[in-house]
């Protein structure tokens, strides 16, 4: 095992896949430098033809990635901030997500759309969003949200090898967080949740940065309540079975999501818990997510984004 940061883990996954498969290439703005470090250093080894810096042209970045993926390349398109992906929603949500379905099911569109998402850095409404729900909502596209260096690396490698379009959203506030990964190669499959902490009283479902909050809270509250933390890791495909199994054991569920509460991932997961494990529930499922406002900058952010205290309150609410 070795210790590595979250952002280094992403860079390592990219480097290994670029090395392994010459069809893989990266494309995006300022990726040779690497705004968040996820692509930093790659150009030295793989050259500017495979680590392609582009103009500020999100539509063209996404389109070039989708188009070349249709011919057998495996592009990783980087959008810097997840907020900027909205510009390319036609290419992502219509073309990448729908064209296999529309065109006989013979085509493959093995593309990764990666971007840094999330708040807690005070960057304001157009640089802090965690827009996982749009992708989760759209049939034909997968969405991955790593919370640890181990998952960041293993999920990126699986995303690149997946024969479908995968949105890979990594969290800006986790870049420097560290964790252990094996020296040897490994993959983390899409659609397999990870139990980040075992417990018996409450099932707490969380992704990305929220997993870190949850882990701290579980430790802090351990004398009062035993919290089981489940990180779905990919929201589509969603490993609902692992979540349901946990709820059957604990009888209580809190679902946490950094995205806007309304129609967010927490809604979907909560509803599936209700549909599949209602008879096991001892209390209504609690949802913790961002309030239904844009995210203000600086200190005001805390009035919109979910806070650790909100998670604690939800745990106490289900415990009664």
């Amino acid at each position, binding site marked *: 095992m070795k210790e590595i940061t979250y952002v280094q883990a992403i860079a390592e996954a990219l480097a290994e896949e670029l090395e392994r498969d010459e069809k893989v290439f990266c494309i995006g703005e300022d990726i040779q*430098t690497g705004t968040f470090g996820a692509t930093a250093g790659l150009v030295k080894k793989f050259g500017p033809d495979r680590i392609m810096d582009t103009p500020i042209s999100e539509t063209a970045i996404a389109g070039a990635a989708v188009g070349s993926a249709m011919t057998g390349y495996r592009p990783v398109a980087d959008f810097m901030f997840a907020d900027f992906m909205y*510009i390319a929603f036609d290419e992502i949500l219509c073309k990448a997500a729908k064209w296999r379905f529309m065109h006989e099911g013979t085509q493959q569109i093995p593309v990764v759309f990666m971007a840094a998402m999330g708040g807690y850095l005070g960057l304001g409404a157009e640089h802090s969003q965690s827009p996982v729900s749009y992708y989760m909502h759209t049939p034909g596209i997968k969405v991955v949200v790593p919370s640890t260096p181990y998952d960041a690396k293993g999920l990126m490698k699986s995303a690149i090898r997946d024969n479908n379009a995968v949105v890979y959203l990594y969290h800006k506030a986790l870049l420097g967080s560290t964790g252990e990964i094996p020296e040897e190669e490994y993959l983390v499959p899409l659609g397999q949740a990870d139990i980040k902490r075992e417990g018996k009283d409450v099932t707490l479902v969380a992704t990305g940065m929220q997993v870190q909050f949850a882990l701290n809270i579980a430790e802090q509250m351990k004398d009062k309540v035993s919290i089981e933390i489940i990180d779905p890791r990919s929201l589509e495909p969603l490993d609902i079975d692992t979540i349901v199994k946990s709820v059957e054991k604990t009888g209580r569920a809190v679902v946490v999501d950094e995205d806007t509460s309304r129609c967010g991932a927490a809604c979907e997961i909560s509803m599936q818990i209700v549909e599949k494990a209602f008879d096991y529930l001892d209390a209504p499922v609690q949802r913790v997510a961002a309030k239904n406002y844009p995210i203000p900058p600086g200190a005001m952010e805390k009035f919109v984004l979910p806070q650790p205290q909100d998670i604690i309150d939800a745990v106490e609410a289900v415990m009664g």
Partner: protein
Amino acid sequence: MKLEKDDLILLYRNMVRTRKLDELTIKGLQEGKVLSFYHSGQGSEGLAVGSAACLRKDDYLWGHHRGHGIGYLIGKGLDGKAFLAEHYGKVTGSCLGISGFHFAEPEYGALGAAGTIGSQFPISLGWGLAAKKTGKQQVVLACFGDGGSNRGTLHEAFNLAAVWKLPIVWLCDNNGMAQYTPIKDTYPKDDIADLAGGYNMPGVVVDGMDIMAVYEAVEAAVDRARAGGGPSLIEAKTARYRSHSEGSPDVSHTVTRSEAEIAELKKRDPIETFKIKLLKQGVLTEEMVDQINKEADEEIIETEKFSLDSPPPEPSILNKLIYAE
């Protein structure tokens, strides 16, 4: 309009004020008082102040994000108080401290600012459409960078502005860099102004470090737009002295921009060169220069104090902001 002596002095003064406010904002960021980001405008004060000086207060303005557009607003008559307070996240800021670096100043025609580069094209197209419909001879000054010119939205908006003959002046701050990427790798020609030909509008290149050249070019385009002649494109060749945003590396791809390179850019400094010119012409004296600098320093102290003394917004404000009555 021929500029009188007082007008010239005001242009100089506003550039000095813009530079000092920029330095103060950088300091604020370093001290952790400024929220989010700051993208310094040092090197483009002549472009900001000189172009905005051609506008009426009711003209629409989308300033370039260098200096977060404050040079344009100063050129239009605003001071820096609400700007800094907004960056500090204070309720006395332009947008109650809720916007940060993407603030608006509707009273000065600056209806918005964006986190997404390239959104200025379609939105300011709408301002131009409104100006034409309203018929009060308002114009739109819509700025963007060389990097922003790579967005597809430019073409949709240029086309429609030309077809609809809208009163829009498209102004490009070409400092040769877009974050870490030099323009030579993102655009196949030398001049962005050449794009104008594709849309049958005038396109000119000016030295963006020469405030008088900026003023004259923008004034001609504004006059044309006001008279119903339609849009124009002006490309100003400027310089970005500092890194893309404070704290980010100052690189072109992966190579650090050298001190010598930056020193070369600074030789064209819009404030210094204009000062020397006005001193030569006898419009300014050394004493006047000192006085202007002293007053600007005093204003900075007051601006900082105003921001520091202001309270942050109350959380209850969020609910008032989200939907109109």
